[in-house]
């Protein structure tokens, strides 16, 4: 059974302008959550906005029973969530969706843009805790330096990272995907990416050329998050549609029909 509960807000703080980390007391969800999966959150008394919002898991502490998400305030749903102070409750259900699969090769490359970074941080922490020796490199992008998130957690997990910003205020000036081709040189790698669709499209193009196994964690507006409404579909290579929520959110890059993506 998928846990659904009224979860108490334990902590809620701003990590970057308009970016917040929300930590919930949600032991059954925290215990089951795996990197790549997401949770649905909704204010208890809200009919406007009506629908829950999907958030990828940023951190899950199964011992402490806490679950964290990192989000950016972009609209009414996240704006409403922002108003939840510690001691207040939200309705939470999950974990939902599939998870990242274990890497092939000797190097793991994580490519994250903006609020696409959180699931990759969770994955990096779990991979770094494995007894298998592997090199993990994270490429993290944002519009400007102050919007780069997850770097402290990556440092703590001893993950090497490089940054890119649109305005050059931190790291490489340009797209985060500019850093990818060189990072793929030398060793067999597996790429995991999450971020805006143009970034994912660029990642897919680069890694298809190098035949590098690549998994993308996709984002889509959802109504239900559990596979029932068929609202969050993406075109699948070979025809038909896949549900981001329940066939994903993690997809091999080659399974997406990029020619039909908006």
């Amino acid at each position: 059974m998928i846990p659904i509960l009224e979860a108490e807000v334990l902590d809620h703080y701003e990590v970057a302008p308009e970016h917040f980390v929300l930590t919930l007391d949600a032991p059954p969800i925290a215990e089951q959550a795996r990197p790549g999966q997401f949770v649905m959150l909704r204010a208890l008394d809200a009919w406007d906005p009506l629908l829950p919002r999907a958030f990828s898991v940023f951190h899950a502490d199964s011992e402490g029973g806490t679950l964290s998400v990192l989000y950016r305030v972009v609209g009414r749903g996240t704006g409403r969530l922002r108003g939840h102070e510690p001691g207040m409750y939200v309705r939470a259900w999950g974990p939902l969706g599939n998870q990242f699969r274990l890497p092939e090769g000797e190097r793991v490359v994580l490519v994250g843009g903006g609020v696409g970074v959180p699931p990759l941080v969770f994955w990096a922490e779990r991979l770094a805790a494995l007894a298998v020796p592997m090199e993990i490199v994270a490429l993290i992008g944002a519009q400007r330096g102050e919007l780069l998130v997850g770097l402290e957690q990556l440092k703590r997990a001893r993950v090497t990272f490089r940054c890119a910003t649109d305005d050059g205020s931190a790291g490489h000036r340009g797209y985060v995907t500019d850093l990818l081709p060189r990072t793929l040189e030398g060793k067999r790698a597996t790429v995991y990416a999450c971020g805006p669709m143009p970034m994912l499209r660029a990642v897919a193009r680069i890694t298809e050329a190098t035949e590098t196994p690549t998994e993308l964690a996709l984002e889509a507006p959802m109504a239900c998050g559990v596979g029932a409404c068929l609202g969050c579909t993406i075109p699948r290579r070979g025809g038909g549609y896949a549900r981001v929520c329940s066939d994903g959110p993690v997809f091999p890059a080659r399974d997406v029909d990029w020619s039909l993506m908006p």
Partner: protein
Amino acid sequence: MREPHVATGPSLAVEVAGMRLQNPVLSASGCFGWGEEYARFWDLRRMGALVGKAVTPHARPGNPDVRIAETPAGMLNAIGLQNPGPAAFRETILPRVHSLGIPIWVNVSANSVQEYVDLCGMLSAEPGVSAIELNLSCPNVGRGRAEFCVAPDAVAETVSACRPVCRCPLIPKLSPNTTDIAALARAAESAGADAVSLINTLVGMAIDVDRRRPVLGNRTGGLSGPAVKPVALRMVYEVVGAVSIPVIGIGGIACWRDALEFLMAGATAVQVGTANFFNPMAIPEILDGLETWLRRNEIADVREIIGAARLEK
């Protein structure tokens, strides 16, 4: 000595077109998949009947993005009847849902009277199919149908063509996108419908002002959710007064109080749709709430409150 008296709960059972339902709370087509998504949250055997996603004459991939848009207290959808078609439904979905042991209503949707007849013939005699709900009202799949479902003569033609081949109760689901829904219901009744269900979604639209274009890929979509409830309730009230067959109330039901409103308007049962999306526990919570309300009001049988709010003319 005899056992001390044990208070039994109120009876929630109702009867629709000769079918006994253990309670009047059903899923609405298109809002519940075929149940498997919600079976991960609660025991589906609690519900009155399972009404699944529409089945069309051939598999449909569904509409291109964007398929949904949130609106105040509601949502627009233009999914486009994505489904695997009748053969796959019969082989892979029906055996699984049949094993639940609750009534299964199959919603069918087509583009012509003949296709409706074919679907009824193909599916109504399948073991495990308790009723056919004729989706005369999907607003998202082409102009022809949107017109044909809003005219009483088209409803009558479709229902009377399906009635002889349909081996189980036949329940047309009516469109609210019409000027006189009571006329549609009367047409369905005189053509041999065993019950009617209403309402399907209201055709609506949202515009993305930044991109200066409609939000939905299909331009328009069906509005559902709490926003449509007052319209649905009025239509149910009106139809109950116009026909003598059972009426299934649908439209924005999100909590037990909403369900009670429809029952008091005269609906024999209700379907819960969009609420499943924003609360996976909507149906069991409605059932619990109804039972508590009946108990608190010392009503032994839910049928006592059906039509309780109807006023004399």
